[in-house]
């Protein structure tokens, strides 16, 4: 909640600063800047590069600030580390009361150490000393060293002077103390606002993990091998799907028999998410490479068939008529008119199919695999290696984005007439 509020505040502040400061310094002199109607004119809306830059920077800073990263100069309040103390009041069976002090020493997360040496003090309740790491708690059997124990009927009646009973929770200096149902005390030092590394590791921990896994590997394969295998499956599965799907789509677009025969199959299979096929594919083909490739083949097949069919339907009839009147044969009409005319549609389909395949391969590897990006993060999550999981997610995102950019570049290069007819 607090993070969301900070995020919204930064968003608003950045908007105001950029809008009123930077736009005054740099006066834009292009055609769009001369348009007076921009609200509602989609073509006049361009992504503000400052906003993109600040957006990424903000996410990174928030991540760093709430994980105590060394790479970010400011931090959210961290967990309490150091020495603190609180007192508890014991009531003996005869009604006598005595105070004792608990000295707690909190070490930074992950470290261990010895508690302070304290003198037992006077009275029947003796002072205690505990040591624990930040974000951990410690159950204190405070009566172990006391003259009357709970077995004798003694009990804690107050902490720092505030009366307590089993189940109550008291704020003390730098932490809270809860009284358990059996009457012992549970001390939790202040957790601060930062995230524990097990939930969200700091950026440098993730980067260190990338370096480590790219050299030493994880689960018998290096990082690059995991990513290579995922990409390999996607490319082989997609190519198989395209090799079968595109001719199938053309056949459906050109022949009534083919369309009638395959329409029910394609229309039925299209809304089935490829993920739903994973169990069946595992039963049929196991968890090896062939199973993955069959799954990705099925994921790409329907998308490519439908886009090729749409490409054929999208040919202006006058182009086909023109080609026939110029003496072209059926085969030549297919080769020189229908195929090139359907390329833009096929590229759009290929982009979608690549995205779906990438998502499907990661999901399939999450379920069962010996190697691959999805398998890596799944195994890491079982061992609570959050930094590996986070690294995997970031790399999966970067690769998916790169695939899409490459497909767009290929599209610009191969079908320059797209959208210009």
């Amino acid at each position: 909640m607090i993070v969301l509020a900070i995020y919204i505040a930064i968003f608003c502040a950045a908007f105001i600063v950029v809008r009123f400061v930077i736009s005054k310094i740099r006066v834009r002199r292009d055609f769009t800047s001369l348009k007076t109607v921009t609200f509602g004119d989609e073509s006049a809306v361009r992504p503000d590069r400052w906003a993109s830059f600040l957006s990424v920077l903000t996410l990174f800073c928030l991540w760093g600030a709430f994980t105590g990263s060394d790479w970010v100069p400011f931090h959210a309040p961290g967990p309490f580390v150091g020495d603190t103390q609180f007192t508890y009041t014991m009531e003996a069976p005869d009604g006598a009361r005595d105070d004792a002090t608990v000295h707690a020493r909190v070490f930074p997360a992950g470290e261990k150490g010895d508690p302070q040496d304290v003198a037992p003090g006077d009275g029947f309740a003796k002072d205690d000393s505990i040591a624990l790491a930040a974000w951990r708690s410690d159950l204190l059997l405070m009566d172990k060293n006391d003259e009357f124990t709970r077995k004798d009927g003694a009990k804690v009646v107050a902490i720092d002077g505030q009366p307590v009973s089993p189940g109550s929770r008291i704020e003390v200096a730098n932490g809270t103390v809860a009284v358990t149902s059996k009457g012992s005390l549970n001390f939790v030092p202040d957790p601060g606002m930062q995230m524990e590394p097990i939930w969200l590791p700091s950026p440098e921990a993730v980067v260190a993990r990338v370096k480590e896994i790219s050299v030493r590997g994880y689960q018998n394969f290096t990082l690059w091998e995991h990513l290579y295998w995922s990409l390999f499956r996607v490319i082989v599965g997609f190519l198989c799907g395209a090799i079968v799907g595109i001719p199938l789509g053309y056949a459906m677009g050109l022949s009534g028999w083919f369309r009638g025969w395959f329409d029910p199959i394609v229309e039925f299979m299209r809304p089935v998410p490829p993920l739903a096929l994973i169990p069946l594919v595992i039963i049929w083909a196991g968890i090896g490479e062939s199973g993955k490739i069959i799954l990705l083949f099925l994921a790409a097949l329907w998308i490519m068939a439908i886009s090729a069919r749409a490409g054929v339907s999208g040919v202006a009839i006058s182009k086909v008529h023109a080609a026939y009147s110029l003496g072209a044969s059926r085969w030549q009409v297919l080769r020189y008119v229908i195929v090139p005319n359907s390329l833009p549609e096929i590229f759009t389909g290929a982009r979608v199919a690549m995205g779906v395949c990438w998502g499907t391969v990661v999901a399939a590897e999450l379920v069962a695999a010996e190697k691959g990006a999805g398998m890596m993060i799944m195994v890491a999550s079982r061992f609570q290696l959050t930094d590996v999981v986070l690294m995997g997610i970031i790399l999966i995102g970067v690769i998916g984005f790169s695939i899409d950019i490459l497909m767009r570049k290929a599209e610009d290069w191969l079908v320059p007439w797209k959208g210009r007819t």
Partner: protein
Amino acid sequence: MSKLSINNLSMRFDLPNGSFVQALKDVSLEIESGELMSVLGPSGCGKTTFLNILAGFLSPTEGTVTLNGHAVTGPSAERGMVFQQGALFEWMSVRDNVSFGPRMAGRKKKDYMDNVNHLLDVVGLQDFKDKSVYELSGGMQQRVALARCLANDPDVILMDEPLGALDALTREKMQGLVLKLWKETGKTIILITHSVEEALLLGQRLLVMAPRPGRIHKEYRLPFAAAGVGKDLRVVKRDPEFGEKREEILSMIWDMEEEIMGRTEEAKA
């Protein structure tokens, strides 16, 4: 010689609700080689259906079309077609569009390239031959379409409102170009148009069609096309006879339109 005979052509489209549309009824016509004929009529009079039958894209429900003595049964290179717009191949350069016909016929490059270059010169696109067609203006695109059709050396050229989507100025220039090409190549040209002026200028013969059922209403033989070759077309348009004919045909088409409107209102009532 190439002669196009059209005998008792009828075309009837059956509708799913049991009724039908008589797009053409008993159209008969003889077109001699080298004639320039324009076809005019209110919308819905079947002129595009007529042209599609001549091109071979549709087979008529009754009647026959014969060219040089053999029946027309499908599209073929002997009958070239120029469409209104959007029939060029965007994935090819201007030159590849123009040389499409000879290439499809499997002719050798050195045999057809001279002719293609000559045609690009005639339509004034020599400097644009390596451009993509989507980089050209609408008028230039139609000139490519004309050149592409001529490169295939058809006996008959069918034009379906080829200048309909152009602006007035470009249109006038293109009308001059069509006349010039007609004179230079001596092809038989059948041109469909919405514009009375264009029909008068580009019609040695002018066919006025009437709707419901689509039929030939009246035929003219006009001197303006022959007179206009190589001349400023505005001079031709100033001819008082041109004005008379224009008024006559305009009022004829107006009457037809009003009749249609009246009939529709009757049907509604």
